[in-house]
């Protein structure tokens, strides 16, 4: 990897890989950095580690993703894996790789850092045994492991269904799927989006086939679930919930895999002071960009799910737009056909996303106020009750709440509590969430040890991943 490039791309998921290849074709000097050990991003994690039969167990989309990752690996684009971006100052990107800080200079920056699962605090969500269903899916992709004991899937959206089917394909059956969708009849929502559904028949068929597989396997699907609580001591022992008819019920389980959708990962964009807005429908921050993906920080583009959730299939298209724009800015002729095709694909993906957002409403995250005993800030062990007290004492934003309660002060720097803190402060103070805003994010993105700080490698000394 050379010390100076035209474009540095952070993230080697579907978006980052596509952008890198498009820029490479224009003859531009590109470098890709990713914290993970290989390409594929969150959706196709560990794509290169599986022989084809293994990948087939994870579904057809995963096989296609693995092919894309393989093509990327062979494209000759310089990439550093295990490289975590730590600080960006002007055009210099400092990243930590193999325990050393290294740097690279880039005229333009593309953030293809993807999404995170929406962190949804509920009582007991901090117990060992409770984790994101998408998080578990990452382990399943990397290692083909399944829970050793009884487990419950809980949440809403296509990803929970997909994870359930991938677990079934590995011979593992959940005790139940607790559906927390606040929309009682997604089918009725579908009726209002018929033309969109017709245009996305493949995706619709996929969703229906997941449901059919669950039914065939005899997995109990309990819909209209609210009031989810995890109980246990050293580890999870039982999952408690309210049924649609108001009765309470529980299941003994060693694991609870929870998922209520994904939200853009905004940490790097916020640290760069890129402008963000509060999306009141999805209740999360999203970066503000122009139609090419360029943020309010000139020369910094944000693409893929980091720019707003459109899904894995759409991610390469927003990346393609940004790549063509950058090529144009650097004096190359953009590929007009690629631009037109990307715009069409994005429009179709947006239509389908509008349907998904209308058909699946996170019931636990959006439905009821966060329970007092839920630990909002896992790092500093701050409960919702404590944060509420801070709001009563006058905290009107995450920064004040942090000073009053330590919420957001821990190692994760607000990645996990930030979204919930904004929502809680808005709900309790009566302010608009847009006015409450998010945490201030400062570099370094992750804490550095003193040894790492003392040992920054000079510009020329760079390792390829």
């Amino acid at each position: 990897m050379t010390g100076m490039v035209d474009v540095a791309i952070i993230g080697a998921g579907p978006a980052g890989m596509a952008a890198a290849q498009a820029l490479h074709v224009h003859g531009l000097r590109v470098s890709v950095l990713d914290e993970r050990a290989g390409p594929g991003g969150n959706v196709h994690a560990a794509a290169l580690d599986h022989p084809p039969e293994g990948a087939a167990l994870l579904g057809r989309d995963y096989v296609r993703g693995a092919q894309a990752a393989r093509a990327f690996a062979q494209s000759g684009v310089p990439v550093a894996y295990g490289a975590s971006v730590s600080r960006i100052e002007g055009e210099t990107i400092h990243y930590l790789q193999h325990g050393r800080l290294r740097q690279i200079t880039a005229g333009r920056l593309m953030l293809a850092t993807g999404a995170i699962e929406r962190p949804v605090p509920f009582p007991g969500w901090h117990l060992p045994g409770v984790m994101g269903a998408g998080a578990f899916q990452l382990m399943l992709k990397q290692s083909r492991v399944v829970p050793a004991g009884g487990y419950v899937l809980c949440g809403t959206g296509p990803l929970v269904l997909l994870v359930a089917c991938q677990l079934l394909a590995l011979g593992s059956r959940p005790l139940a799927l607790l559906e927390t969708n606040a929309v009682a009849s997604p089918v009725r929502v579908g009726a209002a989006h018929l033309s969109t559904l017709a245009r996305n028949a493949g995706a619709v068929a996929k969703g229906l086939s997941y449901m059919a597989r669950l039914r065939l396997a005899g997995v109990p699907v309990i819909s209209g679930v609210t009031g989810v609580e995890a109980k246990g001591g050293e580890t999870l022992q039982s999952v408690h919930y309210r049924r649609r008819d108001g009765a309470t019920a529980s299941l003994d389980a060693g694991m609870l895999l929870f998922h209520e959708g994904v939200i853009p990962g905004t940490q790097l964009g916020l640290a760069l002071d890129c402008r963000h807005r509060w999306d009141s429908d999805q209740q999360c921050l999203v970066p503000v960009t122009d139609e090419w993906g360029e943020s309010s920080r000139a020369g910094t583009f944000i693409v893929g799910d980091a720019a707003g959730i459109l899904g894995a299939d759409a991610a390469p298209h927003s990346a393609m737009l940004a790549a063509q724009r950058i090529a144009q800015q650097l004096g190359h002729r953009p590929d007009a056909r690629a631009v037109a095709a990307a715009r069409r694909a994005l429009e179709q993906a947006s239509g389908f996303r509008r349907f998904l957002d209308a058909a699946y409403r996170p019931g636990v995250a959006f439905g009821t106020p966060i329970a007092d005993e839920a630990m909002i800030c896992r790092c500093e062990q701050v409960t919702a009750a404590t944060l509420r007290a801070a709001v009563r004492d006058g905290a009107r934003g995450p920064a004040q709440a942090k000073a009053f309660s330590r919420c957001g002060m821990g190692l994760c720097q607000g990645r996990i509590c930030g979204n919930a803190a904004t929502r809680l402060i808005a709900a309790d103070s009566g302010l608009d969430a847009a006015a409450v805003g998010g945490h201030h994010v400062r570099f370094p993105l992750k804490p550095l040890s003193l040894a790492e700080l003392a040992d920054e490698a000079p510009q020329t000394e760079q390792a390829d991943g």
Partner: protein
Amino acid sequence: MTGPATPALLRRAKADTVAFMVTVDGLPVQVHPGDSVAVAVLCAGGKPYRRAVLGDAPRAPYCMMGACFECLVQVDGVPNRQGCLVPARPGMRIVRQNGLNAGPQEGPAE
């Protein structure tokens, strides 16, 4: 494969790769290429994955993508590595961090 402790995870169908050994708290654990350090600790099972400095609270990986810092673990003598992002390598010495015993280096050193 895991000694007397109950593992949190079971392996399915990765016979097509060549397994290797790491140690978790000094005990041998069999892992496969592609496994993260976090998966190695969960396969070892038994005790909680780690204990937080605050109140010794038991914690385990939550996000598996480097966001939550619940997977902190000592790897080959270096504390506070994010186990979910570090690939397991043959012979790696992994040690769980138990509250204040994690050593003086825990915490950000900004």
